């Protein structure tokens, strides 16, 4: 079954679906998304799905702000029949070290200058926002009431449904086995279901992005690592914001459904594609969670799982074309933040493909920044 398309997007997560939607909206109707399993089966469906504007670099603040503003009206804009379950309960990022206090105050100044309504608050004020926290464990906190959380499956589905209505084709359970390049230009994509001739390929393969890039001979400075997460039984609403700490390594959010989703990073995690679960994570996660949020000792966890962070050297995404292979575009290296950047990814990558001016200047996130050595490291990452 051979076919052709103007653009082939590899990866049916939020990025791939958002790019397809934006392209179709701009009139590029013959777009094909290829997904190895089902929509949001990779990092998107495995992530914590938190959305925050509280970042340490101007670039990330701008990207996140755009995304949050989009999510506020996502149900309406995408005309979704379901609900993306956007809960705007804020992010409470606690400062547990003096270094963090200083960093947060600096971050907030930057964020405020960009129109992000974050503020620095005392432990007592933090306690008023999350009454069940142990405020004696913290020195202060940064709070932005506009941050929040979504249901990643429904959000991706909303983009996918809108894209399909505009003519996009989604090939589920289809695996890319090779990418054909002729005279330095993309010629087509080989899959286990047939060949698709196309001049443009977008690499939105999440944790597998480096493998896809190798198919066209581009070696990306990316690696993937497992991040684990757990979910509890549902209880009545008791925690508004995402509770988070960079230095203490925790994020914990109650979803509108009532369950708590929490995760942490592990610096000793090997760099590979495993998504198995470990008991070590479970034990450390429970300990950290109870230390800061004591009443959660009585909540039962029901499931743990893992997903892949696609790590870039500066913990920021890579957007746009690759010089050596004409027609090959990147949307990867999110370093754990691909879901929340989904809306902006859709906009800027579609603009790159169509040669349009970027709504948000993202040239600094292009692939050649690594050659030039122009890296700005994002300090605010779990």
């Amino acid at each position, binding site marked *: 079954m051979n076919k052709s398309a103007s653009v082939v997007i590899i990866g049916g997560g939020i990025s791939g679906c958002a790019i397809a939607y934006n392209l179709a909206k701009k009139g590029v109707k013959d777009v094909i998304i290829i997904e190895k399993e089902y929509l949001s089966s990779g990092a998107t469906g495995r992530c914590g799905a938190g959305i925050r504007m509280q970042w340490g670099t101007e670039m990330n603040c701008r990207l996140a702000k755009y995304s949050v503003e989009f999510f506020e009206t996502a149900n309406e804009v995408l005309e979704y029949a379901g609900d993306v379950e956007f809960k705007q309960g804020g992010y409470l990022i606690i400062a547990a070290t003096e270094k963090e206090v200083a960093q947060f105050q600096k971050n907030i100044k930057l964020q405020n200058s960009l129109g992000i309504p974050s503020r620095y608050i005392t432990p007592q004020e933090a306690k008023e926002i999350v009454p069940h926290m142990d405020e004696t464990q913290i020195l202060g906190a940064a709070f932005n009431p506009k941050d929040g959380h979504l249901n990643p499956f429904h959000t991706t589905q909303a983009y996918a449904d809108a894209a399909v209505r505009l003519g996009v084709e989604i090939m589920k359970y289809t695996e890319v086995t090779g990418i054909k390049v002729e005279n330095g230009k993309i010629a087509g994509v080989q899959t286990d279901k047939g060949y698709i001739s196309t001049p443009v390929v977008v690499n939105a393969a999440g944790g597998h992005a480096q493998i896809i890039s190798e198919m066209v001979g581009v070696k990306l400075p990316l690696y993937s690592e497992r991040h684990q997460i757990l979910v509890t039984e549902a209880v009545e609403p008791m925690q508004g914001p995402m509770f988070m700490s960079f230095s203490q390594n925790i994020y914990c959010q109650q979803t509108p459904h009532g369950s708590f989703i929490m995760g942490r990073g592990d610096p000793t995690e090997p760099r590979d594609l495993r998504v*198995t679960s*470990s*008991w070590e994570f*479970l034990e450390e996660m429970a300990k950290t969670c109870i230390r800061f949020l004591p009443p959660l000792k009585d909540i039962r966890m029901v499931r743990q799982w893992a997903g892949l962070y696609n790590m870039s050297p500066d913990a920021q995404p890579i957007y746009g074309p690759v010089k050596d292979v004409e027609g090959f575009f990147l949307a990867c290296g999110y370093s754990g933040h691909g879901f929340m950047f989904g809306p902006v990814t859709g906009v800027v990558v579609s603009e790159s493909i169509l040669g349009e001016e970027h709504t948000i200047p993202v040239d600094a996130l292009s692939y050649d920044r690594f050659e030039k050595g122009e890296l700005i490291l994002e300090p605010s990452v779990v």
Partner: protein
Amino acid sequence: MIKTDIVVIGGGPAGICAAINAASSGAKVLLLDRDSQLGGQLIKQTHMFFGSQKQHASVRGIDIPGILVKEMEEYKDNIQIMLDATVLGIYEDGVLTIEKNDDYIKIKPKGIIVATGASEKFPAFPNNDLPGIYGAGAVQTLMNVYGVSPGKSVFMVGAGNIGLIVSYQLVQAGVEVKGVICRGPRYGGYAVHASKLKRIGVPIMPGHRVIHAHGKDKLERITLIKLDENKKEISGTEFDIETDVLCISTGLTPLGELLWQMGCEMKFIREFSGHVPVRNEELETTVPGVFVAGDVAGIEEASSAMVEGRLAGLCCAKKLGFTNPEYSSLKEDYLQQLHDLRSGPVGDGIRKGLAKIVV
């Protein structure tokens, strides 16, 4: 973290027998059960068992755990029993996490025998979730373990051995059984069980299905419909029966979650009503050192579960280097017992299922 040779998960007939034979071969065994007593579902079986003397035939199910536990005492130096202990997960490094009362425990064994049994199937019909609609196992637990009657009257869905036996047990407990139905044109259980019920006056009605349950806060009434030879509904034959308990006995499905977690190759086998592990004649799965026995390997009778347990225990120990001096003759005996139990007409399905799953 507890280190041991073999962990046996599940203290029902299969698990106890597995522990006995692993321990008698010289392995250190840890036997886990999430209930506060050993015996699994035997503790609710008031009827006498079938099979041969070797599988304790004509002994009541409730009395079998006692016999097995006594046998286990012989090897008490090699067997540690942990009750009220639920295995939560098996991780990539072979570590088991366990909740026991208020404790959280980890175990790292060299071999694992999974004897987790089965869980009851849940049928779909409107209002199937009303209080008063209970699984047959639940009804048995309530009346035979805790001495509480499930209700004033019971209607039984399912006429396999469990449906027929539980109906009989309900009458013994003084509960009116208004009828027993099954979808097919013939009941599935043993004829002797059906005859016992008929003598008492319980109607057995093959070729019926529940299409609706009714009741405000709990079950009050059910609607049945007649089915033709091909289990198709005959419209216009609907009728209602008043009852406050509907007992569901539409089959069991193997509880293989831990096997999935360990990455054992699993296959859906119709004859065993669910996914069961691919295994060899010695009951070792595709993950080396992981063995299975009893209902988790495919739904059968307790008699074969006990023999499977013995075989798995013997072979798992051997795999770890603990060879019973009588290994060969015991193994041959167990295989022969299993062969005999499965050889008759009622073993048809089991033999068919095994042909698809044993490699």
